[in-house]
């Protein structure tokens, strides 16, 4: 399990959305500008801050890449440790940990699939497993491919050529399936997520059903990727020897 890293411990004040500034003890809004309004010192984003909040975005699947990058750049200019080299030790830790969080956040959110996985875990808990599994309807097919691959690897190099076209055909087939699953994820499932925002008061089952579908598709895609890698590896290795 991977998670956000931020160890800077801001002192929490009783109201949940407020922190105390580590330098001057002023109350600071947890999701504020990241700097203390009184003394101007940078504040820890906090270990519980999710990637969307860290980058000032709503929890949506749809993200404008250019906007995401602009936000990341602007926040890097504010928090990067290079600008606090001569600062006090505490400030330097805040800079380091905030920047580490922002970098992880940017990496996870810029890729739609990683973003979806992250959203699922935000909704269902950080430990949520997304098992990699074959699409039901391709189960038989994939078993056949595994056998073909085994035979192919066991075959003498000069026999392999005869088997190549068969493998090649399977490779193309799996690639089409892979692309189909990815399209289904990004074009059918993802757009259905954003309208389910809390303001729209979606029914819990509606949300759960969609999440289950998303998880399944992500798992299918990961599985197909592995099969595809296996096929590609076998085919390219034979080209060499």
């Amino acid at each position, binding site marked *: *399990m991977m998670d956000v890293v931020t160890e800077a411990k801001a002192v929490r004040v009783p109201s949940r959305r407020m922190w105390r500034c580590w330098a001057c003890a002023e109350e600071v809004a947890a999701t504020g500008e990241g700097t203390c309004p009184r003394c101007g010192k940078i504040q820890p984003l906090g270990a519980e801050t999710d990637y969307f909040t860290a980058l000032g975005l709503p929890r949506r699947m749809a993200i404008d890449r250019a906007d995401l990058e602009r936000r990341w*750049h602007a926040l890097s200019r504010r928090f990067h440790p290079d600008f606090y080299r001569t600062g006090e030790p505490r400030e330097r830790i805040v800079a*380091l940990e905030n920047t580490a969080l922002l*970098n*992880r956040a940017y*990496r996870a959110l810029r890729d739609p699939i990683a973003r979806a996985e992250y959203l699922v875990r935000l909704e269902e808990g950080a430990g949520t497993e997304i098992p990699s599994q074959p699409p039901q309807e391709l189960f038989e097919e994939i078993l056949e491919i595994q056998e073909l691959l085994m035979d192919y690897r066991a075959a003498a190099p000069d026999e392999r050529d005869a088997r190549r076209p068969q493998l090649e055909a399977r490779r193309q087939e799996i690639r089409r399936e892979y692309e189909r699953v990815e399209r289904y994820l990004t074009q059918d499932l993802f757009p259905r997520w954003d309208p389910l925002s809390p303001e729209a008061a979606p029914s819990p089952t509606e949300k759960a059903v969609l999440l289950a579908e998303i998880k399944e598709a992500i798992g299918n895609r990961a599985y197909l990727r592995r099969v595809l890698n296996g096929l590609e590896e076998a085919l390219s290795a034979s080209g060499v020897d």
Partner: protein
Amino acid sequence: MPALDLPIAGAHRHKQPRVVGIDLGTTNSLVAYMDGDTPRVIPDEDGRRLLPSVVCFHADGSLTVGEAAKRRLTENAARTVYSVKRLMGRGLADVEAERCFLPYRLSEQHLDVVRIEIDGRLYSPPEVSACILKDLKRRAEAHLREPITQAVITVPAYFNDSQRQATRDAGRIAGLDVLRIVNEPTAACLAYGLHRAREGTVAVYDLGGGTFDISILKLQEGIFEVVATNGDTHLGGDDMDRRLAGCVLNEIRAAEGTDFADNPAFTEEVRIAAEIAKITLTDAEEAEIHLELPNGSLYYRTLLREEFEELAAPIVAQTLEPCRRALADAGLTPEEINEVILVGGATRVPLVRRRVEELFRKRPHSELNPDEVVALGAAVQAGILSGQVQGMLLLDVNPLSLGIETVGGAVEKIIPRNSTIPTGARQRFTTAVDGQISVDIHVLQGERELAKDNRSLARFQLRGIPPMPAGLPIIEVTFLIDENGLLTVTAREVRTSTEAHIEVKPSYGLTDAEVERMILESFEHAEEDVRVRQRVEAQTEADQVLAQAEKVLPLAAEFIAQGEMMEEERERIVQALEALRNVRQAEDAAVIRATLDEVEAVSRRFAERVLNHAVREAIAGKTLMEAARE
């Protein structure tokens, strides 16, 4: 503080200490600084800009660094260390392949951190590098006339954690606080990007003496974002020399029945001749190699560029695969790269230029001197850290994935390669046996599936886990890679919220205690170092006072005319200043200090008058301005 310093000076004195940029190269090292908004290389007293990374340890315990050590390399082959960068952060097994090329000995006893053995004394690679760094530090102090204690040092982008750590240790041993470790290709890009509103995607191809790096960056409004990096820490121009030398030795063996392998001085001579031939062939179509063999016969040969290119081709070819991998990681095609920058002396080889141009399908840049551009970039980064350079920010990546060994010797990746740094990850572990109170964790760096094929960084033992049934404790381990690409690890048991103790055993590094000892040893000459520093400080102060005096002394005439000051007083000041000018170059700081005190004593009243005068002027100025406004 001398009184003359009072009126106007101060701006110089109170600014932040200067941070220099250092390129600690396999074959050559340089130091640079920001002169206003321009990075400049600092030459030595003789005007030389490159310091050969060569250290000779003499029998009497003294040492020579740089050009002098390099010139006498063949005489002192066994006691002269070059290419020490190839040994940084490495174990004996890692350097097995190239050991036979090195004329100096490596100790058989030290497996984890190699030690160079000379006259029965052992030197770790960071200690040798520290000798080079100290020389650069002195060079900078002499040129800038101020003590230098802070530096940015560059490393190949593809250096792993142990190699970076070793570089930082070298800095510490040399008395430098290493504020930042920067990747060489990235530094080069900073130097290119400064003062140019460059936008777009840039590939930096860096082939030095001993290392190859390729980095791909996106430049946007002063942000230099590295998107992918790749390379080979054991590939460079030196390898071309070796291949050529090998070929020459083969020919000698064929003709003479021996290649004099037992004569390290001769082997060195052949290697040097090969390098000279290589460099000649950069501009000429053919080069001649003359050698006098130890048995008195002569070896002579004309080498055509074509022949050399055939020998060098495999080395150049080896650089192309990392380029393709970096492009793939960045998700870019060669056509999408807007500019290609060449860095490193070996990129002067015409074959290298041709191959790079073919791969990226565009003519590479080489306007900046490829030997110097990395040091210039390090100075720019130093300027960013000290606040002297504004608006620029470098976002670099970790070159290798970070992982943990799992059951069965596999690796679980926790931070993928090419992640922007600083970055981190949090990982949870549990126990396998009831009542288990410690867990071993093995941290690795690399891209391979099995632990044994990756670089071992460290082994940790988490201790102090409260005894619980197996699987119940949750030990949360936090990995943090800082902006230098250096890793730190912390751990805690979540259920009982006890901090687990971590015992770090770096697999290939010096322990803190060892570094401390080396710092002490390196200051066997500490007294001398302190003397040098005091002298430099005193000289700097003397220079400031003299410069200041030149500015304000003309006022004395005015004061005398107004009857506020006696002619004798001015005479005394002029004499004291003259004395100061004379002792400025003195070896002894105390002499300079004494003269400075003298200047202060005789000029105190004058300085007060100058101050009053300045205040009057200021008030007068203000009134005038107010008058103007009304």
